[in-house]
């Protein structure tokens, strides 16, 4: 009588093959959904409130002399100044391309921030013909700090520790929405 062949030999001949077709179907459906719903341009935002008139008494305000940092963008130059003369007015000529010198503006604002680390408000007064591109670049140089910037520290009144300032002047309002004076 012949010996029965080993069952191990049979199983060894055919490896288990995973059925990839349903997984493939699911992946193709998922990729189709993602491609259909995703936006390829990532949008970011810069927020600014509409300016509201101060309720403080003008005499009180004159007495307090707030910084009220203002940046006026003109066709050929940019001025950084304070209506209450808290800082020396800086006039920065436009760069060679005819656009504001964002680098110089940024550096001037860092020096102001070092003087007034608690201050976060700035009034922007662009000229009517300034393009949206100029406006966004200007707001970037006003609001954000860069890794290469000198560090600015602010005293935390609650903990008593010095903290690194992450934003320059993040609260931006436009000063000439009713027209140019």
């Amino acid at each position, binding site marked *: 009588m012949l010996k029965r062949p080993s069952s191990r030999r049979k199983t060894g001949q055919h490896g288990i093959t995973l059925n*990839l077709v349903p997984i493939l179907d699911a992946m193709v459906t998922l990729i189709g959904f*993602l491609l259909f719903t995703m936006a390829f*341009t990532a*949008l*970011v935002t810069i*927020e600014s409130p*509409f300016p509201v008139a101060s309720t403080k008494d003008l005499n009180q305000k004159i007495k307090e002399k707030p910084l009220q940092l203002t940046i006026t963008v003109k066709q050929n130059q940019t001025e950084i100044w304070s209506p209450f003369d808290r800082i020396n007015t800086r006039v920065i000529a436009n760069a060679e391309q005819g656009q504001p010198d964002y680098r110089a503006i940024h550096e001037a604002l860092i020096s102001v921030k070092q003087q007034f680390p608690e201050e976060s408000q700035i009034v922007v007064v662009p000229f*009517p013909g300034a*393009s949206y591109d100029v406006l*966004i670049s200007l707001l970037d140089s006003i609001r954000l700090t860069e890794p290469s910037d000198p560090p600015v520290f602010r005293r935390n009144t609650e903990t008593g520790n010095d903290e690194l300032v992450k934003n320059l002047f993040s609260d931006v309002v436009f000063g000439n929405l009713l027209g140019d004076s």
Partner: protein
Amino acid sequence: MAFYRSIRSRRSRRRLSGSFDLQLTSMMDVLVIILVFLLKSYSASTNSFTTVPGIKLPVSASQDIPSDSLQVIITPEGMTFESERILDFIQTEAALGSTEAGYAFKNSDLDEEGRRIVPLYDALVKARDKSELLRAKSKARDENGNPLPFEGTLAIQADKRVQYDTIRKIMYTAATAGYRMFRFLAIKREM
């Protein structure tokens, strides 16, 4: 003749010998890579802001992702509010052959000494009324049981050539219609 017959029979034998198996593993590898890439870049596209063809947005280093709100899109050709064209600009002579935008408002589109844009004001007031009506019907209430207040946020998406004079007219118009917060949209700068 016998030689050709033998080749033909060999071919037919090979065709019949077994079923054809498509190698799906390499295809799976490619699809997994695409899927991972799409899922990674998907997080940056959670808002529902639409755009119009031909608009050139400026680039910003800001990292703030805008949340959903009403939006107005301005190009040198016209203005769109919530995917609906509300006004067309007049193209000036300066626009011909120039890279800068040359456009102007029609006189009938402005009032209040040229500060307010009438079609935009009408559209904003309508949207505000609709929003307030929905809030009044909604079950969501504040601490005192009143309907949630109108947020009054307007996203402004403008072509990089659009002038500040137009932007401030939009801001003034929106403020008179009860919108007090503005979001300037731009394309995220790649770091």
